[in-house]
């Protein structure tokens, strides 16, 4: 396969071609879910979904819609493969990765352009990366995609839902007592409304968000629920929280947790990251 030129005819070989003028619009959002080495990529005409799982209890998904890409061509209804996410991120940052925020690099025209191509099953994922006239070609081996777990989380089973501005939640998460093995989330139509609790070595701590707080954009709680989740599982979600401007927290009748983060990329476009987590154990109401 010719490496040097990317003529239009080459595209006939690829089942998926996605291009971005700024590779950071992909790499930043993938960092928010990069807590494990392997990721399942699933592309449809709607866009790209990347899934990372941990011990069958936690799943993180990043959604990058087709509209985010400068070009997004897919020849099948669904294209799936698995790659090493750490390696992919290293490649996307191969030109060093500028630490300047997006608007500065735009002005200086130092962003890395990406063209991601996939021939199909059995072929590697090919990345063409260009910055300042220098082109790098990376080929990353792909594996058979595993079936992502279906947490069976559907809107009709949601018992409690809140949408918060990320700013206030960021502060709480940065202060969480890490000696606590669990993070307990209480959601209720009455006091304390929305509470995060930890039980650590020195005692317990509670962070309460009232329903009328100006940080609370939406408050729909139908019944009082208290669930505990392993702190080690939820810790990676703080990366997604750091990138986001809003977060929706939902629990269903089984106590499963869904966290959805609204992330704006360098160009102000919206992407989503979501985390699903199983509850740790049954908690008796105190």
């Amino acid at each position: 396969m010719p490496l040097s030129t990317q003529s239009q005819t080459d595209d006939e070989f690829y089942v998926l071609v996605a291009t971005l003028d700024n590779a950071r619009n992909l790499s930043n959002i993938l960092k928010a879910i990069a807590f494990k080495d392997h990721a399942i990529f699933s592309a449809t005409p709607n866009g790209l979904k990347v899934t990372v799982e941990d011990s069958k209890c936690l799943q993180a998904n990043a959604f990058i819609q087709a509209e985010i890409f400068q070009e997004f061509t897919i020849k099948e209804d669904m294209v799936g493969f698995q790659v090493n996410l750490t390696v992919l991120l290293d490649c996307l940052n191969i030109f060093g990765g500028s630490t300047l925020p997006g608007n500065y690099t735009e002005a200086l025209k130092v962003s890395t352009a990406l063209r991601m191509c996939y021939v199909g099953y059995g072929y590697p994922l090919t990345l063409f990366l260009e910055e300042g006239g220098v082109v790098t070609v990376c080929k990353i081996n792909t594996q058979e995609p595993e079936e992502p777990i279906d947490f069976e989380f559907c809107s009709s089973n949601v018992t409690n839902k809140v949408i918060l501005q990320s700013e206030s939640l960021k502060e709480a998460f940065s202060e969480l007592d890490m000696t606590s093995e669990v993070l307990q989330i209480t959601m209720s139509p009455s006091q304390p409304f929305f509470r995060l609790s930890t039980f650590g070595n020195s005692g317990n701590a509670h962070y309460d968000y009232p329903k009328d707080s100006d940080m609370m954009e939406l408050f729909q709680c139908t019944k009082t629920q208290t669930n505990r989740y392993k702190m080690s599982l939820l810790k990676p979600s703080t990366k997604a929280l750091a990138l986001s401007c809003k977060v929706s927290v939902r629990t269903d009748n089984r106590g499963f947790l869904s966290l959805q983060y609204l992330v704006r990329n360098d160009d102000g476009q919206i992407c989503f990251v979501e985390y699903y987590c199983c509850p740790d154990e049954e908690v008796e109401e105190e």
Partner: protein
Amino acid sequence: MDCVVTGGNVKVLAKAVHSLSRIGDELYVEPQEDGLALRSVNSSRSAYACFLFSPLFFSRYTTTNGHCFRCKMAIKSVQAVFRSLATLEKNVEKCHMKLDEQKSRLTFTLHCKHGLLKTHNLSFQDSESLQAVFDKDNSANIFRAQPRLLVDTVVHFPSSLEEVTLSVSDDRMWFKNHVEEDAEPSKAMLTELCLSSDEFDQFSVQTQNSITFCLKELRGLLIFAESTGLPISIHFDEPGSPVVLSVTDSILDGNFVLATLSDENKLHTRPCTQPQPPPDDFNDDMDSYLIAMDTSIVPGPSVTASAPLTRAESSDQSAVNHRTQLHSEDEDETDHAHGPPIRSFVHFSLDQSFLPLLKCQPSPW
């Protein structure tokens, strides 16, 4: 105890806790009639610090009348309550502290903006009384300076430096890093800073001498003083007796009592004569400097506590009236004839009585 701190005082309280964490691992809490006392001591009992917040510091301060209560808890847990210092002022509107004796719990409730409520329930243990007895007002040497002066001074010493030597003459103060006796002279780096008396708000010297104490513990106080902008007072008598550093205003009182290296040969004070100021070029010539240190009569400020000093008998014995020492006479380590300079220990009364084993009246602490 049930009290509420509002506004900027929350940050002051947080800074006090962080400052105390530089001394010891445990925070001793004692609500008193005259205010809330927060104390800490290090494991070797050579450093003690206490902050007393008067009831006026709080927007509400109530204690159970007549009931004397004290407890201690891991200081890291309390630091966790006030974790993000930088945003405390912006975000926290008030802090409510409530002691629940039945459940052995101290509850901190921070009311933050946007309606966010942070509640920390910390468990504590009962503790013995922790009081250092000292009388700083009758010290031989008393100084007061703006915190900036001391902060700018200690910045010249590496953070790894354990001990610093402070020497005074009638109109100058020198800070020098303390080098161990057995350190190789050619490998040791000596740093010395001289401050003139007019940089201080108060500079009163009755006895010209040098004391050596732990710099790390001083830095603890500087954290607090710098953020509150309160002037720092330094009180000391002589090597072997503790140095007291304090910050005071109308609603709070902070005291750091640090032990100093004692010199066993130093049984009386140095003569109060005007020392010759060191020649300007003497720092350039390390050899002559070292020779100067070796001589038995050392007029300048560069005195190490370990060098044996011989001098003319001082007729001015009045400076050695038995001021309140931090170690009792029984524990007087100057009895040792030989051996390395011994650090004095801070004496603590372990019961409720304030009777010192000493001749002066105790301070209200």
